[in-house]
């Protein structure tokens, strides 16, 4: 709650414990100090997992894709999982930006970094899962002497476009937003190497009014450009399945269902990442109850949508009277993969319902655990869509079951290693807090009383939206 101290310091309703612009800079730069042993250990572990990924893929290339267990199971599941993760970042950074939701400022940088790295991870899998990955460029519409365009009717090609577009737009958006903060880092760092690198990355940013004007315009345009991607990318990914004739895939509900699921998983991943960062780097001043509360509500909303979609899928399977459809859906909850089916329903539709309870919503640890459950549940959702449908489609003679091998497991683990490697590097080498934008919600340091009053009013406006019980929140 905004308070006025005796020396009339006006505080932000979002970040009441942030006292000044200097503090923001100080805290942001604190993240960029040379890393400690714990960090290095985590990074080393991630790199080792990446090594596992590389080893597994080399096996696939040298011996053949048969090293994996079966078909699309693990690779495509993981692909859709990571694409989905990305969505929350774009939602927070672009859509909420357009909607002028001021609570995004503190967390959007993390969320956006997560987006970029998640898409980077996801983009691996379409390449890795094909039988002859060395010919991946045949999927791109490159002019060549072969005179063969890719097949624009194929959803896999749409996938290629969707993912590359998403990767391009989200990384450009990410990078543009970083420029003023990188410039700030450049100005404050003493390390000559860092100074040089930040100097290049900041593209000569000096913070003039003109630059700021151009910057905000560009950011707005990019936000507008990125916004439709939140809806389109996962819709396209869902069409990978929906345009096929596989029972359990061929459903019109898939696009909205996938988008909601993507945001659900993305928000859950944001929370999963935020809480440790919050605790380790003592960022309580920035990640405040407002943020968690809003995220919890977003999670709850998307969880309800996803739960509705599950119900609707089952209803349609029943109502259609289609034998194959019914069998597949029945098989999902009673067949060989009943555990996956029930994990999905429980973790995605039921567990988040706990967030209706304020105490749980406001308990960092509880929220973290719920978010991890949702992450697992969302991986299972894709697994349940892919594996039981394929193993139980039209032809009974070709019903099969999945047998995971060490290669599958390595690729799955390796994808986490790959993601966390980038995320850890980001944490220590790029400003994780958006200094410029956080300052927007802080009352500016003013000399004149009138101006101060004005800022005070603005802050008061926000105060009303604050959750009650904030006082009890443990800040650090």
């Amino acid at each position, binding site marked *: 709650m905004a308070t006025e101290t005796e020396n009339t310091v006006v505080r932000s309703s979002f970040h009441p414990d942030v006292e000044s612009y200097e503090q923001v800079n100080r805290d942001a730069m604190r993240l960029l100090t040379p890393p400690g042993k714990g960090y290095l250990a985590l990074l080393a572990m991630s790199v080792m997992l990446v090594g596992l990924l590389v080893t597994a893929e080399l096996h696939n290339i040298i011996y053949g894709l*048969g090293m994996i267990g079966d078909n699309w199971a693990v690779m495509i599941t993981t692909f859709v999982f990571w694409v989905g993760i990305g969505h929350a970042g774009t939602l927070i950074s672009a859509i909420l930006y357009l909607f002028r939701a001021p609570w995004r400022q503190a967390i959007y940088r993390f969320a956006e970094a997560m987006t970029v790295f998640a898409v980077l991870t996801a983009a691996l899998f379409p390449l890795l899962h*094909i*039988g002859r990955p060395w010919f991946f460029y045949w*999927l791109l519409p490159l002019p060549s002497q072969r005179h063969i365009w890719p097949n624009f009717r*194929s959803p896999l090609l749409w996938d290629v476009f969707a993912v590359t577009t998403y990767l391009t737009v989200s990384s450009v958006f990410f990078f543009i937003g970083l420029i003023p903060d990188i410039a700030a880092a450049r100005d404050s760092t003493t390390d000559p190497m860092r100074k040089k690198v930040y100097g290049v990355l900041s593209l000569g940013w000096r913070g003039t009014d003109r630059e700021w004007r151009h910057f905000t315009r560009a950011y707005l345009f990019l936000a507008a450009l990125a916004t439709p991607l939140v809806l389109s990318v996962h819709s396209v990914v869902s069409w990978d399945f929906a345009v096929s004739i*596989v029972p359990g895939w061929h459903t019109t509900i898939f696009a909205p269902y996938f988008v909601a699921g993507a945001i659900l998983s993305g928000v859950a991943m944001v929370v999963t990442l935020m809480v440790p960062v919050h605790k380790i780097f003592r960022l309580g001043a920035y990640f405040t109850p407002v943020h968690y509360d809003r995220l919890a509500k977003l999670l709850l909303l998307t969880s309800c949508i996803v739960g509705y979609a599950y119900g609707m899928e089952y209803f349609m399977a029943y109502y259609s009277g289609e034998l194959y459809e019914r069998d597949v859906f029945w098989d999902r909850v009673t067949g060989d993969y009943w555990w996956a089916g029930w994990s999905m329903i429980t973790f995605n539709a039921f567990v988040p319902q706990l967030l209706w309870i304020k105490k749980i919503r406001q308990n960092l640890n509880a929220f973290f655990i719920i978010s991890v459950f949702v992450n697992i549940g969302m991986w299972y959702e894709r697994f349940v869509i892919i594996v039981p449908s*394929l193993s139980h489609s039209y032809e009974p003679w070709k019903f099969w*079951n999945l047998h995971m091998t060490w290669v599958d497991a390595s690729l799955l683990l390796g994808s986490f290693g790959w993601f966390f490697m980038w995320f850890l590097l980001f944490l220590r080498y790029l400003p994780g807090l958006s200094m410029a934008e956080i300052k927007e919600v802080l009352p500016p340091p003013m000399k004149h009383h009138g101006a101060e009053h004005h800022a005070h009013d603005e802050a008061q406006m926000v105060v009303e939206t604050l959750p009650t019980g904030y006082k009890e929140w443990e800040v650090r």
Partner: protein
Amino acid sequence: MSDGMKRRTFLKVLGASGAATATVGCSTREVEKLIPYAIAPEEIVPGVPTWYTSTCRECPAGCGIQVETHEGRATKVEGNPLHPISHGNLCPRGQASVQGLYHPDRYTGPSVMEFGVDEARAVSWSQAERVVAEEIRRAPRGSVVFLTGEYRGTMDTLVDQFAAATGARRVRYAPLEDAPRDLDFANADLLVSFGADFLETWGSPVDYAWQFAQMHGYRNGRRGRFVWVGPHRPLTGLNSDLWIQTRPGTEALVAQALAGGDVNAVAQQTGPAEGLQERAAALRTLQQWWGESAAKVALGPGAAVQGPNSEALRQAVAGLNGRSAQPADLRPIQQLIQQMNAGQVKVILVDAQNPVHSLPGGLKFGEALRKVPVRVSLSTFPDETSKLATHVLPQSHFLERWDDYVPRAGVFELVQPAMKPVFNTKAAGEIVLGISAAYGAAPTTAGAPATTWLDYLRAAWAGRAGSTEAWRGALKRGGVYPESGSTQAFGFTADQTAASATPTVTAATTPAVTTPVAGAAGAATAAAAPVQPAPAVAAPRPAAPASYQTPAYEGDGLHLVVYPSLRFYDGRTGNRPWLLELPDPVAKVSWDSFVEIHPATAARLEIDQGDELEITSPHGSVKTRAYLYPGVMRDTLAIQMGLGQEGGGRWTEGLGANPMKLLGTLDPATGAANHAGVRVQVRKTGERNVRRAFPQGLVETGVRVQHDRAIAKAIGLTTLARLDQQGPGLIPGEDQHIEELKASGGFVPAPVQTDPASGYPPPGTEYGEYIDNDTRWGMVIDLARCIGCGACQVACSAENNVPVVGPTEVRKGREMWWLRIERYFGVGRHPEEALQDNATDDVRFLPMLCQHCGQAPCEPVCPVYAAYHTPDGLNGQVYNRCVGTRYCAQNCPWKVRVFNWFTYEFAEPLNWQLNPDVTVREKGVMEKCTFCVQRIHEVERNAAVEQRPVRDGEVVPACVQTCPTEVFVFGNFSDRESAVSHAARTNRGYRALGELNTQPAIVYLSKVTLHEPRNGGHEAAGHSASQGAPGHGGGEDHEEGVPAKGGGTESMPQGGQSEGGH
């Protein structure tokens, strides 16, 4: 003089090093020779296959074959269309014979193991022959034995001459019964088989399968009936309409009671008290059928019922029929074993037989063999017997040697080499001649010593094809025989022409029995003793009528049946990778052996699918895996012969179990191995790994029933007759769909009008989006004729270079078959239904291959256009363009696309067999059936050169070519007068999963059952022979095959015939 290099030296060094570099550079490069011949041999045009006529020698049937050779290498074997036995078709074993030819584990040349040395030493042929001749000469008179098979040809004369000259004694060994090969039951209306698996090994399987399809397939409103008598149902039994369950050794009672008798008494004696009523009812039905049938044939006895009362059964069958099979008399072998044990045999020559494997283990042939000092094997492959040999003189495979064979009266066949021997091997005849020459007693032909085996053979054929011209003619035709009477007439043409001629059980064709001439030492010339056909029925035995006696079994516990199999015969083809990978037609298990056990018995003994069992008889024990199968009697186990080979090469070593180890004594009346006369103890070993044992889907997800999907449909004879009265039927797809709409008063679409300006939509688009409507390749598959043998699968692999993936990958469901035979027990909803007692009464075999959809789901999803549609309606696949996303396979409802998970190896020299007309695929590429597009294009090219249209029936894909029962018709659907269009215009036609509207190019014709098939297992009462008297079929409300019924139950998407009515 300065120390510096002089200009001259520099130039020298420069020149020398330059030359060296150039030389080295050139010599290290492999020079590819693109032109194989400097002077091309006559007959051979590079790229154009040459065909040689010959005879298949994989089993005693002796099918006429044609061998396709490319540049001097045999690549494929096909039936000789003129031949009366093969009818142009071939079984899986015959198709796989090329893998025997190129088997990488074959003996590469003669080798001799010297006394006291464990290692065999490679020697030259002349050395080997000299050594063997020397050993024979040194051996005391009467101590030399030549163990041969049944040659039925010039080899008989030669070996007899050899025996006479060297004082050797010839002992004949044939592991399986001698069954008549000239029966004619194509027009019979009742067939009763007493354990005679005539679709697999008994008699002449290819011929008999063809005849069976003629009599049992649907034609002109009728079809014959087939009754199987025996303790379990192998593939042949699974094709029957009625199964008479008999405890092993009691079949004779059924044969005796066929024409009349107390069924209750017979039922009591032939099985346990449990299910007595059902068995009696089944017997009553059999009696009734036998009584009302005009043309009936009894077959038997077969190897599976060989044991107690074999002689009684043989006589009973002979009494019914005039003909019967003679169980293999092993008493001479038993005697030989005694002599070997007594040390009376000093030298033994074993022709390409493997008695150590295929004789009952209790006879202990191997141990006796070890007591013979000189053991000469003439085996082509390493096997249990040849591994014990001191001298291995490997004989050539039949595709690389001269020979002849007389399978039945009036059919004289020639075996002609299609290529030079792959390895340093010789024909058996040549080896015998060589040893004789070294011995100093060369057999003579026409008075002169025979120099070569070919000369000897030609001299023997002088009476039949003496002149060069006649000889060449015989070679061209593969021998001298009356042409296949019915030639290639399809069952479908028979559909139209009434086939009501009374069948002829050609008993009169048996020639006067002549025991092969035991030529006096060198005196009788081969030419003077023309080959006599060995009698189809062995020499008449003393006609003491054997009466039925209560069978006495060895041991106690469950009964055991040991039976030969379609894939491995007695084990001789057990090392061919194609046959190992080919799923057993009944159990669908590949790369392993299994023991059939009734589900109820298994439940009682707490045995689960795939449990490893130790089966112990008084003679030995084997370990193999349980296969729960309701087609075996409750107190009986059944195991196939053939696997469990020790020393059979890289694929066979340690694979499966050899059940012959469980047998020991011979049946005193016939001298035959006691295949059905042993009782065994069963014990679980505790090892259970289903995945290691069986293909995963088979066990884990229970694919034996159709889960109500009606992919393999059946229709009752009555319903079909009713439909036939209404009209001839329509081609499934558009026409039929419109008719159904009309019938139900629904919307009738206007006929498609082609817009003359744009030419769109093109005429014929009812078959999908393709531009050229002149050709729409398609296929009709008649399930009423399919016996499920899998010959098409092997032929497809041979033609299309489909790799073998091996046991590990098969168990992951990664087999590469482009064509597979699905075997369903009824329609069924739950996998457990396939374990019910009556499950085997409704068995449907369905060849599943790429459906070549008009609107193929696989095509639009391929991002790189590797799957695409050809103008002539084929669903093409460009291997080189494929990147392996596998989306096409996911989107294929029939799951007929297969993926190269690895680059599968064709072990040298198996790769010699590869068809040069078809690409060999690498890892990461999707592949599938192409309707043998290379054959289509060959025909199209030839037609273009001759400036004529492609004729109907000219294109013959490999599966169509080989099918012994002529299940397939291939042709052009756009031509409404083509054979394929005619075949599809029937009341039985439907498209598998046709309601998906992908417009498949394959039309299936429902199997025709005597009674209305049960629908989806919802009806408790079936027409089960074991459960009740046939006749009170499934509930009338749910009968399949009635169009516009709207599906009997909610879970049936389509009611039988009402194709596309969804």
